[in-house]
């Protein structure tokens, strides 16, 4: 099989992609794209369904600036980690006078294989508490086989050993004011941290070590208030780890896909190139959704196929188009158009009968309210 990163329109797996997929794991089309290594944020670029891709550069700059501050990175690749060590000491009692910090980005650059090997070795030493083990690993690369693809996952965070357990740190640049953070940003950070912890657990397991050594309390470092002064919070993410573990286990391995050819070939037909025009690419994407199904709903907003699936739901009149409540209340009714007919009094099938009766009563009350008018 061709490695995903070498395929047209495909993307190398990253922790962020993996965490993003966790929100769409219930969708067969998103799962197939994930298994085949296609980045849904990019496959429809250049068509009417392609959204502006990427992060605001100002957002990116803020993140980089904060990370450099936490790691005391002078910009020359040398990090002194003063603010980080101070936080760990003051808040978690990490009191190691001569902390040994290994910066794998600085040591081994972009050689992911070498970094992965070194990460394994360092984790081994840390887990066994060998003399002179690294206190903190920065730029770890974890290898894991997800959906049948062995891949290197470069982590943003850091790992360190405190007492009997390994701790994982995520550094995020959203502010905490009066003890409160933006709930969406916080949830995304916790998901990403939970995934990182899960990958460390897998790595330890692969080394024959006890995965229970990794604490499931994530250490989150964010700026406090307006400036960039770092502050530290701990968050238990056990439930999130469990959800991610179940989800990744449920993703099928990369195998030839259903119906017309392999999933790889099918997603290749959605990407740019080979003289394909936008219409052909959209048709190819729609045919994947038609053949293997999708699961359109409010959680799809962060998916690159969101606009395409939304339009498809509209053309089908799918109740999910109008949100969870509508879909729940119209159980048994195939479409919004059919619901309109039932509200007008069409004879329901046995499956439609409960929703049809409720629709009729609501329609009667609505009519009556319009007749009564304002008091």
């Amino acid at each position: 099989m061709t490695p995903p990163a070498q395929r047209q329109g495909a993307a190398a797996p990253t922790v962020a992609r993996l965490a993003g997929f966790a929100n769409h794991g219930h969708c067969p089309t998103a799962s197939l794209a994930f298994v085949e290594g296609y980045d849904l944020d990019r496959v429809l670029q250049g068509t009417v369904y392609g959204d502006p891709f990427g992060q605001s550069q100002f957002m990116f700059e803020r993140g980089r600036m904060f990370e450099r501050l936490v790691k005391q990175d002078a910009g020359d690749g040398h990090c002194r980690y003063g603010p980080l060590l101070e936080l760990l000491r003051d808040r978690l009692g990490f009191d190691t006078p001569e902390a040994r910090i290994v910066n794998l980005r600085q040591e081994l650059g972009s050689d992911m294989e070498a970094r992965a090997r070194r990460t394994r070795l360092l984790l081994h030493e840390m887990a066994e508490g060998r003399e002179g083990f690294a206190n903190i690993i920065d730029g770890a690369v974890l290898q894991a086989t997800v959906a049948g693809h062995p891949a290197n996952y470069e982590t943003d965070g850091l790992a360190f050993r405190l007492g009997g357990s390994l701790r994982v740190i995520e550094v995020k640049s959203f502010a905490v004011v009066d003890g409160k953070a933006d709930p969406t940003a916080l949830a995304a950070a916790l998901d990403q941290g939970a995934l990182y912890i899960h990958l460390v657990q897998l790595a330890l397991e692969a080394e024959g070590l006890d995965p229970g050594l990794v604490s499931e309390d994530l250490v989150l470092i964010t700026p406090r208030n307006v400036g960039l002064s770092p502050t530290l919070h701990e968050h238990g993410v056990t439930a999130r780890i469990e959800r991610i573990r179940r989800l990744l286990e449920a993703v099928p391995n990369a195998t030839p896909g259903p119906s017309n050819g392999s999933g790889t070939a099918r997603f290749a037909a959605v990407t740019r190139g080979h003289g394909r025009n936008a219409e052909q690419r959209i048709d190819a994407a729609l045919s994947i959704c038609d053949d293997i199904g999708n699961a359109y709903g409010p959680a799809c907003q962060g998916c690159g196929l969101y606009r395409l699936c939304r339009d498809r739901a509209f053309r089908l009149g799918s109740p999910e188009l109008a949100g969870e409540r509508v879909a729940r209340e119209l159980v048994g009714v195939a479409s919004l158009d059919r619901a309109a007919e039932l509200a007008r009094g069409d004879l329901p099938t046995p499956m439609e009968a409960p929703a049809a009766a409720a629709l009729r009563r609501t329609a009667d009350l609505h009519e009556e309210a319009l007749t009564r008018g304002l008091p």
Partner: protein
Amino acid sequence: MSLSTLLSVRAHERGRAQRSALCCHRLLRPDPFLVCLFGLGAEPFSAAAIGWGRDERRLEVAVAGDPRERRLLFPALEELAEDFLPYFEGPFESVEEVTGPQGGNRHLEVNELPQILVPNRETLLLLGLIGRRVRYLPTDGPTPASEELIRLGAHLDFLRRHAALPGQQLVVIASDLVADHWQTSLNEWEALSLPALDAFVEPPAGVHGHDASAEADREPLGPRPDAEQDKAAAPLIKALNEGRAKSVERDVVEPLLAPLERHYRPKLERAAEISWRSLRREAGYPSARHAARREQEDREAYAWHMNMVSEGLRRRSRLTQAQAIRRVGDLERAGQRVVAQEAVDDPLRMVEVLLSEQAVLGTVTSVDPTHKVGRKSRPLVEVSLGRPTMLEQGETVHWDRLPDKDWEVAAVHPDAIELVLLNPRAKPLPEVDSIACFTTLSVEDEHFLGTPSRTPPWTHVGSSEPEQPSSIEEAEAA
């Protein structure tokens, strides 16, 4: 089933949003003060550009240049303050101390109220964060903040908090205003977008609301820009920073702001235009009966806040546990009251209450104004419902035409109900053969009696020393 589901179905079928209210449940002023913003990336405490005004034909715009530099941001905020403060503080000049009914507590009251219009909830949140940032800045030391900036911050912070109160009318969030009065087939998340809602309500001729809203929603309305918008702003900010060579002097910076104003003005004007249009559309509907009554709470909250600010008192930035519990209780009770008020004001709103079996609707079959229970006068009406009811004998209900009077369920029949009026002098009574609606929901305040014990549980004990709010501005940034 809910009415909103039926209306979503019809919005999809007809290609236009469907009205979910017969009247407007907010008291809208003819010339509120509009504020719209555009930020930079996800910078949480600043605005790259601010638009404001009370005239829909004219939008004042201030751009910061580089909002990450506070010495550039604050002058832009001060420009806003110049117009905002006289408008917002004006009504407090006529404040009076009045005594409550029956010699109740003395409190402050104002005759007029300001009203702030914002395009969406995110704008209000960002204004609140900016307010939190500047309201406690020091007015002395090496970089003193102006009094105007601090007052602006205090007001923005207050408005953000007050807007959490259901039914309040000091702040009008245009996207909420539209979503509260129209039903579309947009999902819960999509219905937070003002351009998408607006396009679904008034799609171009021959275009389905779904397609119109998708098109309208392509360009963010602010305050958070997308990557493309920031990509266009980046070289302009870079040029400004190179041009000013670290200077923050107004005569150096101001001539360099024109390209940024050209970048942001059309975006702010679009936000303002859709906000004004939404406001005007709703103002065309008759105002709900209870909307004016709810103003009283706004008056008291506004007067209390203005008094705090004028006396230089600081409001806590974090609540104690006891305060937080009371606050949640207050918000829940206010929410219930608003649901009840809107239902008795508007038959369309009452549909949801009927569907949840908290109300009955039927034809009045008999009225006996002379009916007595024992020696007490208790006018009796019988209502034919045509279906069973879940109301029980002894329950208190309210007639939607006279909702502050109490009726008691005297008897429940298979498809009818008998009710006696507990306030016998209340007039008029329902008429025979008329359609009448009675609900268990109460439009009155339910008083919170507090904790019954002399020694309240730890959850209700406040901290002994109130936490003093402080500046969240970094010392090094000063």
